């Protein structure tokens, strides 16, 4: 194996056991202040039967072992800080560190949700400003920041639809989803009590107005539309689509996961959307952190506003207050007010960019995706001819002939020092390679990525077996996911 492959060179990483295996009886890594009140007998205070024995097999390690443990483990990971993270639909953009800094300011980080409103004005102001800016970006009349993530926003949104329709006399029965929809859309519709009807996309990966028109009737509560959709294409007929739905009294729900393609350029509220969620951990740069936390702001047109979860911010006599008097509200979707720490980061992002900067970021995101598309289109089969927005989707038809699928190419990409693109989604694409570079990538990194993809395309021709067994340069070779699911071991045991 040559020492340098593309942008990587082999080095070593430290092995590390699990905390439980490192554990030695009696080791500790903590120190508590001396108790400044009399100690008390737990068995007496709580009743002997309520007091537990020592927590069996719980870790016992020193402080240096803790820092080493997690530092070593971190070196087995990949993050945006190390390079391009082209996961389509995930908008893995640079996470500005100023956001982390401001979220840690003591007066914000240590604000208790029940501290008096008079001593929470700063936190409430931050939320109010963010609601306002998001409303402008979405083109919606009101915004709730309560939902904890995208899927939670979807759930909130569909409950709003139900509450609204119910107030109109009939909650209806069905939610339509295109076959390209993200899994959370049908899952959400289902847990929100609706039957899901899947609509076939047309040959351009878009919603077919004719198919839609045939499907819409008085049973349809809403359609969940992702725009740009999951193949990275803007639903050209969106205005017409919204018209068809509205004509039958159905609501237009927009999954705003791909809002990074639109901010400052086009507004969902202007093309017929009644309610949408936005994943602040995508478009607004709050870090994914290996899977969360996120925040799923939901924007609505005014007819849905009375149903928003409470409490809602209200200004009275120049002071912010929480309004609980919301007779039509669907109720809370979570305790307290939302993932405030994430909201702080999102607002910092918006402030750092400003209006003009946000639009520039959108355009750069489109440019980067189209650049990749242009560089790769001779090597991989583009899924649809329609113009790409912030991501481009290929299919693995060329490579499949050699027996290498999108998943294999993805694993080989790891050897080249990149996180893979999104694999096999959306399902309507044959072996999808879904690539979203985001606006924060420098051209050199995009070029290195394209070079790697082209090199792999050539490797698939020359040595498909090698590709099918990738990765070869990682400390962990291909992981057997099938066995994991067959006999699940989801916790350590001695």
């Amino acid at each position, binding site marked *: 194996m040559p020492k340098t492959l593309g942008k990587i060179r082999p080095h070593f990483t430290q092995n590390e056991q699990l905390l439980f295996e490192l554990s030695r009886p009696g080791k500790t890594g*903590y120190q508590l202040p001396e108790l400044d009140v009399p100690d008390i007998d737990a068995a007496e205070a709580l009743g002997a039967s309520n007091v537990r024995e020592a927590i069996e097999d719980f870790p016992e390690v020193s402080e240096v072992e803790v820092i080493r443990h997690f530092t070593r483990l971190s070196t087995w990971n990949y993050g945006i800080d190390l390079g391009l993270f082209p996961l389509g639909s995930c908008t893995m953009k640079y996470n500005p560190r100023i956001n982390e800094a401001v979220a840690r300011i003591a007066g*914000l980080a240590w604000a208790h949700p029940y501290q008096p409103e008079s*001593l929470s004005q*700063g*936190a409430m102001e931050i939320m109010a400003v963010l609601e306002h800016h998001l409303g*402008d970006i979405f083109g919606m009349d009101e915004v709730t920041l309560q939902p904890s993530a995208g899927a939670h926003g979807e759930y909130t949104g569909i409950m709003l639809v139900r509450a609204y329709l119910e107030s109109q006399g009939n909650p209806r029965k069905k939610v339509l989803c295109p076959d390209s929809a993200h899994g959370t859309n049908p899952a959400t519709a289902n847990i929100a009590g609706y039957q899901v009807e899947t609509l076939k996309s047309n040959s351009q990966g878009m919603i077919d107005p004719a198919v839609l028109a045939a499907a819409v009737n008085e049973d349809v509560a809403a359609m969940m539309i992702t725009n740009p959709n999951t193949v990275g294409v803007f639903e050209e007929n969106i205005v017409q689509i919204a018209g068809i739905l509205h004509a039958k009294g159905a609501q237009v729900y927009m999954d705003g996961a791909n809002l990074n393609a639109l901010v400052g350029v086009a507004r969902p509220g202007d093309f017929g959307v009644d309610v949408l969620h936005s994943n602040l951990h995508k478009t607004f740069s709050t870090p994914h952190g290996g899977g*969360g936390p996120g925040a799923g702001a939901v924007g609505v047109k005014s007819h849905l506003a009375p149903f928003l979860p409470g409490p809602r911010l209200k200004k009275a006599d120049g002071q912010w207050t929480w309004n609980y008097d919301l007779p039509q509200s*669907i109720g809370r979707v979570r305790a307290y007010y939302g993932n405030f720490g994430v909201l702080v980061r999102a607002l910092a992002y918006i402030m750092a960019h400003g209006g003009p900067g946000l639009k520039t970021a959108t355009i750069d995101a489109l440019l980067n995706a189209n650049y990749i598309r242009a560089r790769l289109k001779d090597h991989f089969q583009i899924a649809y001819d329609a113009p790409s927005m912030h991501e481009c989707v290929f299919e693995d038809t060329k490579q499949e002939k050699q027996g290498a699928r999108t998943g294999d190419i993805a694993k080989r990409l790891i050897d080249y020092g990149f996180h893979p693109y999104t694999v096999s989604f959306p399902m309507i694409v044959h072996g999808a390679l879904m690539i979203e570079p985001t606006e924060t990538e420098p051209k050199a990194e995009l070029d290195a990525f394209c070079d790697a993809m082209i090199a792999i395309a050539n490797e698939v021709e020359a040595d498909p077996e090698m590709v099918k067994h990738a990765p070869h340069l990682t400390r*962990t070779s291909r*992981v057997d996911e099938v066995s994991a699911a067959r006999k699940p071991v989801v916790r350590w045991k001695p």
Partner: protein
Amino acid sequence: MLEACGLGHLSELYAHLPASALLDRALDIPKGLSEYEITDYFQAQAAKNADGYASFLGAGVYSHYRPVLCDVVVSRGEFLTSYTPYQAEIAQGTLTTIFEFQTMVCQLTGMEVANASMYDGSTAVPEAAMMALRITGRSSFLAAANLHPEYRQVLDTAARNAQLHVESFGYDAKTGRIDLADLEAKLNSGIACVILQSPNFFGVVEDVQAASELAHKHGALLVMVFSEAVSLGLLEPPRDADIVVGEFQSFAISPSYGGPFAGIIATKEKYVRQIPGRLVGETKDADGNRAFCLTLSTREQHIRREKATSNICTNQALIALMATVFMSVYGKQGLRELAQQNLAKAHYLAAGLDTRFNGPFFNEFVVTPKSCTPEAANAALLEKKIVGGLPLGRFFPELKDSMLLCATEMSKRADMDVVKEVLL
């Protein structure tokens, strides 16, 4: 680059959008600010909040000391800026820590399996209820009246939307514990689960075993809820429960005006395929080395779509990691000592005060100020740079003369003495 795309101008990138969709003005957001100005802005907002006050608020959100290592670890870019570990070969760091988290959740709760995290304690409650529904095929729920009121509201929202029925059962006005007789009276063969919090919202430790026996007698599951994770260091784990859900905010996670926190859900092995959200499992790589990966994803939305156990996708991974570091730092001995200190502080604070309930309590309790309303007591404390307790009238009209007070290892004796003075 534009040229490589075959374009002449940047605006061509979105020229194909319908004209009516395009925004014909600039966003109504001022131009970009520097880091310095942004810091200034947020510092100014922070200054309007209660900074530098001692606080005796708990009620689901606790002020515990955060060991510095917690923040050091989650600040590492390899954790902070990584995605959900779908690509196991370059996500073993995240996967291993989640596996450890799942294990420690089991060790603490006495359960057999736990997932990678839920949004928070409150949203975990309806998830548990829906799980019970799937397991039992029943669709009514009994929830303790002393469950965290906001958790209950979240459950109600979900139930109302899904046209499911949630009924309360009462608490004993003396002990503050659930009224077992009322529970028994309300149990029937339509009940999917009994939902119970311990320590409950009043800080009182429940008799989980008795409740679970009643529930099981009627074929219902017992869902045990907790909001103060530190209590798990000292309290007998709810081994008789079928599902345990709760909030790990106490483990290194700052109050942050209510979020982000980390919910947990744990259950018996036999229910593992009904658990919502992500699970990490152990396996091997092609060389036979131990490795971890996301598993049983056929439960999840991205595979199962409308048939998934939940729609949850993004969870609270980084916060769960923070809690994992916290648990590692404190460890077996430290977590117990920490809990013991909380117990001692709260009992010191309570001593001599007019406590409303006589059930055993951990680090929170309900107190009735002797000579004024809770609101007046809080106002007096604020003058002394102390945020008092939570007046209970807003959630429990029958307790409008009382407040919920919390003490933790961070509560200083001098401040507690001030509180006692005001409440006596």
